[in-house]
């Protein structure tokens, strides 16, 4: 194993040579690189940056090299993260393949499924979406009703999913279905994978209050799913689902984020100005400082939980980080509205208002804040 200092030096040198200048700036909303068959790169630089990082496996730094990953230790991955942040590098690829189904396949998938799907995720070739919630199964996810009928070598799936992120743009879906209608609520669920071009799959975007449509309603009518595309054992999907929810929490909680942002303090100075070295609005000054302290506390806690953790998953602690991270982001957006006043409430494409409205969903998606509090109370504190 290479020593830390050498690795840091080498990484720094490589990044200096390979990260295009235009990829070294705060990423505006809407410029995320998501990959996939139909992805429109915003620039050649964006494409080159993704490809160069993918070649080294650094779009998935800790995944094993045999599946295209970077094969880095946690320590080296942290160094890479720091060095990326140091040059304000944009994330080369952000996808549910990397953050969700990839880790699940590494943990639960057959060798065949790993070989089939992981390298394509690392390269950004295939974009994934998640088929979890249903109209009547939100917080009560295990109440899902989409059913998969056994037809020997394949299943026929019927049902409706909702809040499927970018189902209209994704290439494949990982999807929770009920494979045994007779067993108890949490049993009889399986996690299956299928191509979105399979006949019977259709997705309809949902327009949000923010004016964007990151989610879809997805309809599954007699969709054929091969049995070799079941992750783990049939009827044993709930434990994988919980594992995936943990990853989703970490993602939404901003835990894996490599994107640097301008601080609220700096934005406050821009918006309100200083008077004798102090923010001109004293009440906002206190609120901004309070937020920054809480934000710092959340970041340090993410770091501590990682330092304490022996596995790649943060387990129940992710409930805390998701809960607090999303509440922080909502507070941040409210503060930015307050700082920028009516300017932030204009209704145009780049309006702060859209981010503010979008943030309201953070504490709903991936398990509501109430669900996180339940998890903490029951699983961590043992309150019955």
């Amino acid at each position, binding site marked *: 194993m290479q020593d830390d200092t050498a690795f840091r030096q080498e990484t720094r040198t490589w990044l200096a040579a390979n990260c295009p200048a235009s990829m070294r700036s705060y990423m505006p909303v809407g410029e995320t690189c998501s990959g996939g068959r139909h992805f429109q790169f915003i620039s050649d630089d964006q494409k080159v940056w993704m490809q160069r990082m993918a070649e080294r496996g650094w779009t998935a730094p800790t995944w094993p090299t045999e599946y295209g990953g970077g094969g880095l230790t946690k320590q080296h991955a942290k160094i890479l993260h720091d060095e990326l942040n140091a040059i304000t590098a944009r994330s080369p690829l952000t996808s549910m393949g990397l953050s969700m189904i990839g880790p699940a396949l590494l943990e639960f998938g057959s060798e065949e499924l790993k070989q089939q799907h992981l390298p394509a995720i690392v390269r950004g070739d295939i974009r994934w979406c998640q088929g979890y919630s249903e109209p009547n199964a939100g917080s009560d996810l295990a109440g899902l009703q989409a059913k998969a009928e056994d037809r020997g070598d394949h299943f026929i799936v019927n049902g409706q999913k909702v809040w499927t992120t970018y189902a209209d743009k994704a290439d494949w879906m990982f999807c929770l279905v009920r494979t045994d209608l007779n067993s108890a609520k949490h049993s009889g669920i399986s996690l299956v994978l299928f191509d979105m071009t399979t006949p019977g799959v259709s997705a309809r975007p949902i*327009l*949000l*209050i923010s004016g964007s449509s990151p989610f879809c309603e997805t309809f599954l009518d007699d969709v054929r799913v091969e049995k070799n595309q079941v992750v783990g054992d049939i009827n044993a999907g709930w434990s994988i689902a919980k594992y995936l929810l943990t990853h989703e929490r970490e993602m939404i909680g901003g835990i894996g984020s490599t994107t640097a942002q301008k601080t609220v303090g700096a934005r406050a100075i821009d918006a309100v100005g200083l008077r004798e070295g102090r923010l001109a609005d004293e009440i906002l000054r206190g609120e901004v400082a309070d937020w920054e302290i809480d934000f710092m506390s959340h970041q340090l806690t993410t770091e501590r939980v990682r330092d304490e953790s022996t596995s790649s998953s943060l387990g129940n602690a992710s409930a805390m980080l998701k809960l607090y991270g999303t509440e922080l982001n909502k507070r941040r957006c409210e503060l930015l509205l307050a700082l920028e006043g*009516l300017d932030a*409430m*204009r*209704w145009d494409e780049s309006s702060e208002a859209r981010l503010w409205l979008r943030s309201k969903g953070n504490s709903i998606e991936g398990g509501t804040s109430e669900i996180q509090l339940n998890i903490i109370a029951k699983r961590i504190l043992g309150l019955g």
Partner: protein
Amino acid sequence: MMKLVLDNEERMVRDSAELFLTDTAGPSLLREVRDSGNPLGYAEPLWQQMIDLGWPGILVPEEFDGLGFSQVAMGQIMEQAGMSLASSPLFSTAVLGATALTFAGNQQQKTEFLPKIAAGDLTFALAVDETARHNADHIRTVANKTDQGYSLTGSKCFVVNGQSADMLIVAARTSGSDTDKNGISLFIIASESAGIESVTTSMMDSRPVATIHLKNVHADESQRLGALDQGGATLAHLLTVANVHLTAELLGISGECFKRTLAYLKDRKQFGVAIGSFQALQHRAALLWVEIELCKSGVIKALRALDAEDKDAALLASAIKVKACKTAELATNEAIQMHGGIGMTDAFDVGFFIKRARVAQMLFGDCRYHLNKFAEYSGY
């Protein structure tokens, strides 16, 4: 003794406003206005019906053909407008325009304008702000003395109904520097005057506002509203009135959001039971209800203070603006959170309430601005 309950006349106004607006307005109408790209930001038939009901004249004295009702009565309409998200020139014309003229207009101005306001023949807009965050002490627009009167130059932003109003009330500096309390004068300017360029800005609450550029806009002496250089006091009064009525609107928004959320808590089932049976949600709903009740008391007190010309009206207005803003923020945020995913969709109405709430909170000073003012008025 001023009672914090409605008298008969006020209750009648409230009931008829509720009946009419529930039927006629509502989020669906605002959605229609938005989706049709209507540049006015309100439905003309709704405004016409308000005129037929006599609402533009609620605050206009009877001698000028108005109804001469109380600010409390007007506040009931504003609250109902908040509940139904009714968009119209009522606030800018019937509250701000009518109050400005009644408070500071000379006999000739009153005679000229008030009957037209009452009849719905003329709409007004108040052009005061020059920054995205309200700061009444900062007026840079100048009105230079000329042989024929005044020449106004400057820019006003986020003027409510500014893109459609017939007349503008413009705050301009006639002496002193940018932040002087004295030296401000008010002018009544026709929006069609030479030298005025008005740019419409789309806002998230689907109510466009105007940025108004004035370049050497002429005003006669007869267009000056109130004494020269002494417009600050009128402006302060106008802003007090404006904020009190905004708190009534915010109260309506909070109340309606809460009502819808409560119904959803009783209706939506997860884990086999209504989500309103979960104690954590019950307690949060109870806390929110309490905040709205407190807010309600402040709104009627502040409205009564306007009617009584209470010397503490400005302090009360700031106090209740703080309370109303915080309550609306809580009520709209809880509404979305408790509705879950459905509340995030544009097809559902709750988004319209949160968007309108934040704009109404920010107009003429948000909770931070007024917390500071309240402390100032309190002597610390």
